[in-house]
């Protein structure tokens, strides 16, 4: 399991800059980013190399939440996400949100938000996917 950060933000010029500046100043590296916006509000989701440092850097009084996610390492080739999705859908697990990024070693990391992280990890591990914990994730992205 890894943790993704979700940050509530007004949808206004300068907001993303402010957040990313705070992370840059703290030496935190962003691995993946998603922005969901609805009119004047938005939620920014970040996968970073050091979530605890990022959480502190963004700090009070920000509305920020750590969201547990499944991280899976897959080959960087067509159909890799499909294989993961197929296993989960057979087991009746709904993927609420997903993102991913390629690694330097010709592989990719998929980040999945699901209701029950532990259950989804077990299903994927049983199907012989490489599920990453925090330490594996750091080693993969380092």
């Amino acid at each position, binding site marked *: 399991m890894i943790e993704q950060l*979700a940050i*509530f*933000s*007004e949808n206004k010029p300068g907001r993303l800059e402010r957040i990313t500046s705070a992370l840059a100043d703290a030496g935190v590296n962003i691995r993946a980013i998603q922005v*969901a*916006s*609805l009119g*004047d*509000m*938005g*939620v920014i989701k970040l996968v970073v190399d050091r979530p605890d440092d990022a959480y502190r850097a963004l700090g*009070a*009084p*920000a*509305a*920020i*939440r750590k*969201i547990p996610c499944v991280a899976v390492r897959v080959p960087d080739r067509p159909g890799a996400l499909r294989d993961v999705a197929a296993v989960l859908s057979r087991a009746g697990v709904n993927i609420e949100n997903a993102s991913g990024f390629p690694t330097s070693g010709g592989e990719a990391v998929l980040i999945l938000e699901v209701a029950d992280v532990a259950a989804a990890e077990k299903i994927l591990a049983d199907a012989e996917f490489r599920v990453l914990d925090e330490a594996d994730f750091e080693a993969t992205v380092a």
Partner: protein
Amino acid sequence: MRADRFYDPRETLDHDALRSLQLERLRWSIAQAARSPHYARAFADRGLSADSIRTLDDLRRFPLTSKQDLRDSYPFGFLAAPREAVVRMHHSSGTTGMAVAVFHTQHDVDVWAQLVARSLYMVGLRRGDVFQNMMSYGLFTGGLGLHYGAERIGALVIPSGAGNSRRQIELMRIFRTTALHIIPSYAMALLGTFDEMGLDPRAELSLRFAVAGAEPYTEGVRKRLEETWGADFYNCYGLSEMQGPGVAFECPEKNGLHLWEDAYLAEVIDPETGEPREEGEEGELVLTTLAREAMPLIRYRTRDLTSLLPGPCPCGRTHRRIARIQGRTDDMFIVKGVNIFPLQIEQVLMSMPQVGSNYLIVIDRDGYADRLTVRVELTANAFLGSIEQVNALRATIAERLRQEILVRPRVELVEPGTLPQSEGKAMRVIDTRKDEPGP
């Protein structure tokens, strides 16, 4: 025991003694008012004088006095004492045409200090306490008004004035402040400074209670303040036209404010018709001074909305209580033909722990239609991580507000700590409709 619980024996005068003291003082006050140019004319026009008063009800034969009357007679039209007897004046922030000056003789300043001392003693201030007065000193009555009352009790008074949040907190810490006088919206704002400084007011201060006044606030705000500060908050009422703070004050029962009836005579009227309202019915508070020499005011319309609470108070004081101020007649705004008071909106917001204590009401026009927007901070803990959740919360707030004010406002949720903080009275309503040509 009795002597210890009450500062002043007049606090517990029985009903008849209090009414007869009021009658005697009312006759004196009418005679005194008649020395001012304004009342001399107003009474003569109607054939009224102190002799018109046989019972307290006879006061209703006298005309109401409005704030506009004070403005029209600026600066000396209500002065009833010789100029050389005046030792202090306070002044509103308005410009000429809108300004009001209020004068005090030494006697007036002494009575004021006595009422404030009585009020502060009631909520527990004693010799040995450290009383930090975070109200603006100067033309505004908030600072000096409570200062002399607290000194009269023998407390150490820190006249820290308004603003400069970090220094306020440092003073509270170093001198172990036990009691505060503060504007409620500033008490909310200071919580942000505690956060920045990494201090917990519940753990690191010696505070027992705070007196919060100068702007109306809801019971919801009081509860939030008491939880976050870890101290009792008492409501204080006053207006500069009467004296300033200390006209009415909450006792430890926290159920209404004792209006000091030996110094003020209270009526509650229908603001539209001027007809009296029954006990328990809301209306506009109208006050007559009973002990002021320099500037007696007869049947002054405060524009504050409240009701007289029925029944005796368990604390033993006999002076009648008024309900927490529900708003001001001139705070009301009309959106799409519906009358709305800002405190109705505050009441709904404070019932929802998902939103912060700071809020802003913006009224503008969308084409020819009025548009009402309520901007409020999402609290950090209430955010669960998805845009859908925030949007659902926004819809819930809009619906709760619609149930209360009968208009569905646009709700804007903003990040914690981003709405402007004020060090003085909070600016809660921005109405830009006046700046544009109407439909």
